């Protein structure tokens, strides 16, 4: 049961890069908390009753679309999955760092993810022509589960925002990028050989750019086993070199 009767104070980052007169600043809003209130509900309440110009993104409201990532009291989180009952009376909201700011709390994660996918060529490289009539190649259950685990990423950008390296090095593949690389490196249908993968993985912008802060793993709303993924990539790099 959500706590009720609280008056919540939201300190929200405001800035519209499209408007030359806009200056980055924090704006304070106060609203009444209601039972089972999510951040999504709270921000809609603010937009409907206090300031219609407030920009933020939401689509699915069920942690699938990955569009409502934001910094909640310094921690990346999905607005739809965050209950106000889990937050203190004062909540500070910022847009996710690293990504291009659209305005206020809205960022364009698409540019970053597209660039990452293109750089690492995050798609199956197959040499065989696809035959829709042929039976699919069999895959080991454990491997299929691991690939599925990596594929559960909704590209919300929370891991990237929490990563110290991604925040200071735009070239770093980032947690979500390493997860994508691992997903295709694991896939037996991908015909890229170990030497090709070695060049992508064993790199200061690949897994060896990671400094092991581990925040990505801890903030991932989908609870992806990111640390296991990096350990897999490190060991794959080492075994290829040996």
């Amino acid at each position, binding site marked *: 049961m959500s706590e009720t009767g609280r008056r919540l104070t939201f300190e929200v980052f405001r800035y519209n890069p499209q408007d030359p007169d806009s200056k980055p600043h924090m704006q304070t809003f106060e609203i009444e908390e209601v039972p089972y209130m999510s951040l999504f509900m709270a921000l809609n309440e603010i937009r409907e009753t206090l300031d219609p110009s407030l920009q933020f993104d939401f689509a699915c409201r069920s942690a699938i679309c990955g569009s409502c990532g934001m*910094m909640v*009291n*310094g*921690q990346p989180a999905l607005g739809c999955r965050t209950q106000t009952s889990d937050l203190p009376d004062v909540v500070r909201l910022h847009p996710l*760092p690293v990504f291009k700011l659209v305005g206020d709390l809205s960022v364009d994660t698409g540019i970053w993810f597209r660039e990452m996918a*293109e*750089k*690492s*060529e995050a798609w199956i490289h197959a040499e065989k022509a696809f035959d829709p009539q042929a039976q699919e190649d069999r895959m080991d259950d454990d491997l299929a589960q691991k690939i599925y685990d990596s594929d559960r990423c909704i590209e919300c950008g929370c891991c990237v925002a*929490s990563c*110290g390296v991604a*925040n*200071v090095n735009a*070239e770093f*593949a980032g947690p979500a990028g390493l997860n994508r690389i691992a997903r295709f490196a694991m896939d037996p249908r991908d015909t*890229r050989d170990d030497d*090709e993968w*070695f*060049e*992508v*993985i*064993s*790199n*200061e*912008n*690949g897994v*060896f750019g*990671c*400094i*092991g*802060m*581990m*925040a990505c793993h*801890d*903030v991932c709303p989908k609870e992806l086993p990111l*640390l*296991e993924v*990096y*350990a*897999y990539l*490190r*060991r794959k*790099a*080492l075994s290829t*070199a040996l």
Partner: protein
Amino acid sequence: MNLLKPANTATRQLVYELLSGGTGLVLALFMWGHMVFVGSILTGSRGFDWLAEMLEVYFIAQPTVIVIFVLFLVHAALAARKIPAQLVERRKMIELGKGLKGAHEESILWIWQVRTGMIVLVLGSFHLVLMAIDVLTPLWGERIGIEAVTSLERVQAGLWLPYAILLICVEFHASIGLYRLAVKWGAFAKLGRSTLHTIERVILWLFLGLGFVILLVLAGVIPPPLAFLLGGNA
């Protein structure tokens, strides 16, 4: 393939990573052994001097101090490559770490690992040079190497303070470093991360506790608590 970086840097990066992690591992393990050796002071000066003499007479101490110094410098140079060069970048990381503190502590611990690493580089270099002088100069003359009376004098003359700082920094840096290394490579993964973190904490407090008792004995604040093992003659 459109690579994240041009070819041939990959092998170099792997070597750097292995060297920085490997030297860190060896240095951390050495510190545990070092603590046991220095811990001989708990039995009194006689035990300490006997052990120091053995290590020097059988030429264990001399190559060790050189090898450890080399590993120490290699580790510092390679681990430092991960520290952002710009102040603005470091500030960004610190802010990020502080913000994440409520949800998780490893980010802020990484920042403290860097800070303690810097302190260890300075104070550890001083200590290593001092030890190198102690164990290497007797090779060229009738000098006495490491001995309890000198160590007690030094600590009591004021070196207790830099040594106390060095102790805290080394133990913190080494224990969190070992934990991070294990997680990075997936070692002891079956134990789970929280268990590894707990083990790390236990090791940290254990060696910090032992280190402070040793330092108190060297500073003359308490008598050697294990002196009875050598017949009570400290």
